[in-house]
Structure formats: structure tokens, C-alpha cells
């Protein structure tokens, strides 16, 4: 639970196209790491290499190493399915399974992990996950209803509940609030601050205030130039990045003097 991730000199390709080059960073456990940067610089691409979702794109591949504690995530004997069971992901658009009830959505990951849980145990896990996602009070009376009947913000919290129900080591979030109103956003930000007590959280966001509010560390990605791959410009403590970043590009970006 809550593991450290270490990325070493990672190059990320879509077929022959080098999308991101030379990323090295350490992501600390029990903290929130925010990734910011202009559109198209490869934040999502990088995030998806952390749980081996990247390679689902035909011909996509990576060069370099990623360790979770001491396990090489891209080791020859590692099954990507197992990696994804340990590293949860929340997407930009809420994506509960429309054919499943609220209850079944939260239970979906548990059933996959082949844990034969008794009904009572399952109920308990579902309640715990929904409570942790601050959704329990709102949905406890309609667990058998379809998840797609919830509001956007509730759906996103349902997706978070689904991701944490399996107690992953790490939680990845790709712009989890970009489709939500300010109040739902607030709810999810509060949630992140609670969740980081137990999980390692990495979040991609375009909202700089959000990065400043929720994260402990912030990494700034940028394109090296037009038609060039993206790169990690710097990663540092959030307070430092937003007050005295060490690179000029970072300063330009956060002060809105970008491009």
C-alpha cells in the first residue's frame, strides 16, 4: 500500500513517433504529485505508462525503466494486468459501466481480482469504498440503480470508489475534474487530500490553482520545440514551483506568459 515510483530515463513512443523523451522522476508515497504543462506535451501519455495502459495503443512502446518500490514494472516476467490491478486509474470523463448498478460498479474490480468474497464482506468493501469517495450518503439508498443515472460529479466519485475498492498502491488521475462544476471539483479535491493519507496519488491537471491546492510535488512538462518530443522540465515541491521555479519556461507557464 502506497508505494514509491521511480522513473528512469523514460522515452515514450507511438510507433515511430517519439512523444516524450528522457523523463526521470521520483514519486513519493502518501503524497499528491501534480503534472502540469501545455496541451499535447505528453502528460496523459506519461501517466498511462505508469500503469502500462500506454501499450494498449497498437505499436506503442517505451524505453527506460519504471520501478514501483523495488519492482521493475516493465520487467520481462511482469504481467501488465497485474500492474493495473495495483495501480488504479481515474479518467478525464467519468466512465462508470453503464450496464452495471452503482453497487456492481464498485464491486467490479474486486470480482476481477478473483477474491471470492461473501456477500457481507462485499457489502462492507463497497460501503467502505463509497464512504472513502464521499459518495456513500448520496447513493446508499439506490445502490441497485444504474451508475449512469448519477450526476457527472457523482459519477466521477463513483469511478474513484471503483478504483480504490481494490486497495491499489497508487492512484492515477488524468484531469479528473475537467468535466465537473466547481462544487464537485471541490469535493474531489477534498477527497484527494484524504486519500493521500493512504495512497500515492498522481494527478494531471490544467488547473494551476488546483495543482497548487492539492499537490505536494509538481512536475512541469513542456514540448522541447515545435515538432519535438515533450519532456519533463522540472519537478519540485509545489510551493517552490509556484513561487521560485528554477527554469524560465516553468515561470513563463505558471505566470501565463506562455506561447
Amino acid at each position, binding site marked *: 500500500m502506497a508505494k514509491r515510483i521511480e522513473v528512469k530515463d523514460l522515452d515514450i513512443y507511438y510507433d515511430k513517433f517519439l512523444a516524450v523523451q528522457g523523463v526521470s522522476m521520483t514519486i513519493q508515497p502518501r503524497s499528491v504529485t501534480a503534472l502540469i504543462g501545455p496541451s499535447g506535451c505528453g502528460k496523459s501519455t506519461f501517466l498511462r505508462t505508469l500503469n502500462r495502459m500506454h501499450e494498449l495503443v497498437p505499436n506503442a512502446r517505451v524505453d527506460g525503466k519504471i520501478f514501483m518500490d523495488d519492482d521493475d514494472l516493465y520487467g520481462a516476467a511482469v504481467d501488465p494486468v497485474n500492474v493495473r490491478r495495483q495501480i488504479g486509474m481515474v479518467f478525464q470523463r467519468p466512465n462508470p459501466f453503464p450496464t452495471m448498478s452503482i453497487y456492481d460498479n464498485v464491486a467490479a474490480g474486486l470480482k476481477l481480482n478473483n477474491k471470492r468474497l461473501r456477500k457481507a464482506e462485499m457489502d462492507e468493501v463497497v460501503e467502505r469504498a463509497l464512504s472513502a469517495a464521499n459518495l456513500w450518503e448520496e447513493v446508499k439508498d439506490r445502490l441497485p440503480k444504474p451508475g449512469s443515472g448519477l450526476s457527472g460529479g457523482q459519477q466521477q466519485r463513483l469511478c474513484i470508489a471503483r478504483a480504490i475498492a*481494490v486497495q491499489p498502491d497508487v492512484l492515477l488521475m488524468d484531469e479528473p475534474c475537467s468535466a465537473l462544476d466547481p462544487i464537485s471539483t471541490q469535493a474531489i479535491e477534498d477527497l484527494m487530500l484524504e486519500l493521500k493519507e493512504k495512497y500515492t496519488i498522481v494527478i494531471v491537471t490544467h488547473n494551476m490553482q488546483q495543482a497548487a491546492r492539492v499537490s505536494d510535488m509538481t512536475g512541469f512538462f513542456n514540448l522541447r520545440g515545435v515538432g519535438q518530443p515533450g519532456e519533463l522540465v522540472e519537478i519540485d515541491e509545489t510551493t517552490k514551483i509556484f513561487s521560485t521555479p528554477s527554469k524560465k519556461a516553468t515561470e513563463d507557464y505558471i505566470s501565463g506568459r506562455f506561447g
Partner: protein
Amino acid sequence: MPPSTTRPKAPKVPQRPGDRIFAGASTGAGVLILVVLAGVAAFLLVEAWPSLTAPAEDIPGGEGVAVYVWPLLFGTLISAVFALLIASPLAVAIALFITYYAPRRIAAGLGYLIDLLAAVPSIIYGLWGFTVLAPLTVEPANWLAENLGFIPLFAGPPSATGRTMLVAVIVLAVMILPIITAVVREAFRQTPRLHEEASLALGATRWEMIRMAALPFGRSSIIGASMLGLGRALGETMAVAIVLSVSGGVTFNLISSANPSTIAANIALQFPESSGIAVNTLIASGLVLFAITLAVNMVARAVINRRKEFSGAN
């Protein structure tokens, strides 16, 4: 803005000619379908009526309409249902293979091939069943009768020509396979990437992803496609007429030479030589076919609608 009319409450939305023409055309088409359907039903009823009211001994066979139609109805149902039982799981499997397992270049070719197969006229399938498939089944049918004869389906005695219900079922299954596959594949292809990724990110294997995202999403399409196939099998005429050696009688025995015909095949074979009340009787059997086809479609609708909330359409 056009001048306001006598109804002050609802503000008049400007009507564009395009909208009006389209609305008119689509309403017209909808009404036309209902009119045609009602017309067909009325025609069948009127033409079948004399046979329903005639004395039993005037009906071909001499025992009334019900006794005449029942074996045909039985043959129709058994051939179509067994064909569907073979074709639909196979179609889903093929569609899954094309969508999720086949290398991309092969997948494209296979999909194209399936679409082509769906366009082959049924008489071709009938000829193939008669000349190629029927002789091929003689040996296996003997084996089935000897070793699995205790199952009523394979009771035998096996036909020497192979023109059995089994061959009719297989021909029908092959015939409806492409259309079911094509529809189901289209549904799988539209499985939202979002939901596929949701399950994969939870650590689903590919098969688990198919079970969590693709199959539930494609569920109503699978049912719809099966009903389409069933409808085609129920109404199939020439392929069955060519393949099946008929002697009437109601039996589950698939491999003997004594088979019930089907309604559609029977009409095609008997109609040219019929006159008078015999024609009315054939039309009465057509009315039965019309009714069960309608019923099949309505049941399919009901099944699809029952879980609409969960269909992913919202």
C-alpha cells in the same frame, strides 16, 4: 418572425421548409408501413377465411386446417430454432474474434468476407446443401444413430440421401450466420473506448474486458441480430424446399428421412399445383407464419426494453 397566430400561449417557432418536408416524409413513411402491414394481415385473413370455415374433410389431408398446419409449424419452428442455436453463439464468437483478437489486417479481410456472405442468395445455399452437404452428412448421421441414438434428436433410422432436418438446420444456420455476425460485429466495434479502458485499468484481462464492457454493451444488438436471423430462418423458402425430403409427421428426429416440411417451403412447393380450398389452406398457413414472425419480433423488443435503463444509451 411570422405573424403570431390565434394561440397566444405557445410562441410559434419558425418552421423551415426543410424541417417540414422531412417531418412530413418520415411521418408518411411510418404511416405507410402500418398501412402495408394492416393490408397484408387483412389479405391473409380474408383469403384464409374459407379454409377456416370449410368442413374438415375438404382440407388437404382431410382433417381440418389445424391438423394440416401443425406439422408445418412444428417443422418451421424446429428448423429455425436449431439453426439459431447453432448460428448465434458462433456469430458472437466470430464477431469477438474479428473485433478483439484477430490481427488488424486479417480482421478487415474477414469482416469484408462476412459482409459478402450475407449477400449470397438463399437458393445458392440450398443448392450447396443439396449437392455437397447432404451426402457429407450420411456417414456422421449413421455414427450418431449408432452411438447417440438414445438422444431423441438422433434416433434414426438415418437417411440414406442425407436430405434431413439436420442438413436443413445447418444450411439455415450457415445462411443466417453472416447477417448476425455483421450486426453483432458492428455493435462490438462501437463499444465505447472509455468503457474498455475502464475495465482494463481495473486490471481486466482481455476476456474480462469483453465480459465487462463489450458483451453488456452489445447485448441488445445480439438479441436484435438473433431475431433478425430467426426471422430469416422462419421465412426461408427455397433452401429448405431444395434440401428437405418431406413426409410430414411431427418428430424431433433430425437425421431420418421422415421430416416435417416448413410453412414457407410447403407453400412454395404446393402452390403451383393447388386450386380452390387448397390455396386458402396454404394462405392460412401463411397467416400463422406471419403471426409467429410478428410475435418473435415483439418478444425481442420486450427483451431489449426490459433493461433499457442499463443499456448504456443514456
